[in-house]
């Protein structure tokens, strides 16, 4: 019975940790894949894959150094610092996902991003025979830019509570394998996955984690203990869905062209 409760207790953290890390990483890896595919198709696969591989190695090293280092800082300090960053990150995604779902700002289009990147690669002229430096640098840069966000999410979500780095890393790794498999199988951008829905879910999960860690770091007692994390997720979800409806209503009342927001 005690063991059963221990497993349930642990899963209230580990479950959302895996899901949040998986979904957030999925979004980032899909965006990176779009650019890597464009680079590979236009400028050759050798440079594109080498750049991607080098960036992934740097990212794994960053996680291996940052993750354990954070566990040496007092937990209260880590929870407040990482909780604040998670909250800012999560609320930024949630805000954008709500505005996109309500039609206030345009949705992200992977096919359009692929076409734009392919055109940019072609405009750079002839490619080198063996190692194309442009392909290598572009693939390295995009994988680093998107991957740093993944490292942040893994370290921030995993570093706030004891033993959560492993579940967070597993979530990110599964996302990487899935996106790689899709890239190899499809050879085109993964546009069929509803990116805004993923961002919506990640925004909710990460914001809930952020608020929870800050409360814990401040020494406040959440009602229901760790179970309140599930309550926070439910609360953010209901509020966000309500906000989409309210924003749609507001935008219908004041029609004009949707403004782009980076």
């Amino acid at each position, binding site marked *: 019975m005690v063991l059963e409760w221990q497993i349930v207790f642990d899963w209230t953290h580990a479950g959302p940790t895996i899901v949040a890390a998986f979904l957030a990483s999925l979004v980032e890896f899909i965006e990176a894949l779009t650019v890597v595919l464009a680079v590979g198709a236009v400028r050759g696969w050798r440079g594109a894959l080498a750049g991607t591989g080098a960036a992934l190695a740097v990212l794994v090293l960053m996680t291996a150094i940052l993750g354990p280092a954070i566990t040496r800082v007092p937990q209260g300090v880590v929870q407040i610092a990482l909780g604040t960053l998670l909250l800012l990150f999560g609320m930024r995604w949630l805000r954008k996902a709500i505005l996109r779902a*309500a039609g206030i700002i345009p949705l992200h289009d992977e096919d359009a991003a692929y076409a734009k990147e392919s055109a940019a690669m072609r405009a750079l002229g002839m490619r080198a025979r063996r190692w194309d430096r442009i392909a290598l640098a572009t693939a390295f840069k995009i994988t680093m830019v998107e991957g740093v966000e993944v490292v*942040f999410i893994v370290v921030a979500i995993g570093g706030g509570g004891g033993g959560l780095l492993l579940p967070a890393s597993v979530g990110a790794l599964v996302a990487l394998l899935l996106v790689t498999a899709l890239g190899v199988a499809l050879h085109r951008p993964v546009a069929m996955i509803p990116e805004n829905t993923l961002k919506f879910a990640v925004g909710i999960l990460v914001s809930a984690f952020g608020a929870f860690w800050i409360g814990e770091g401040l020494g*406040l007692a959440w009602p229901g203990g760790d179970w309140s994390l599930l309550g926070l997720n439910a609360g953010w979800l209901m*509020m966000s869905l309500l*906000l989409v409806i309210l*924003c749609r209503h*507001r935008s219908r009342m004041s029609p004009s062209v949707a403004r782009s927001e980076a």
Partner: protein
Amino acid sequence: MRALLAIWRECVGLFVDDGRLVACVLLWLAACWILLRPLGWSPILLAVGLAAILAENVLRRAAERS
């Protein structure tokens, strides 16, 4: 130097889209730090305040379309 600035901008961009949202969140967290802990109030107030800040932000943004 230019590369360092680009990296810095990318890092800031992870957390900041709308400066007003960030400022409101940080102010609310500071207020919670000062008030909630000494008074022993429920952390639910923390979450409710954050939800209110997000609601105000997106509804204002929706109204700005006009």
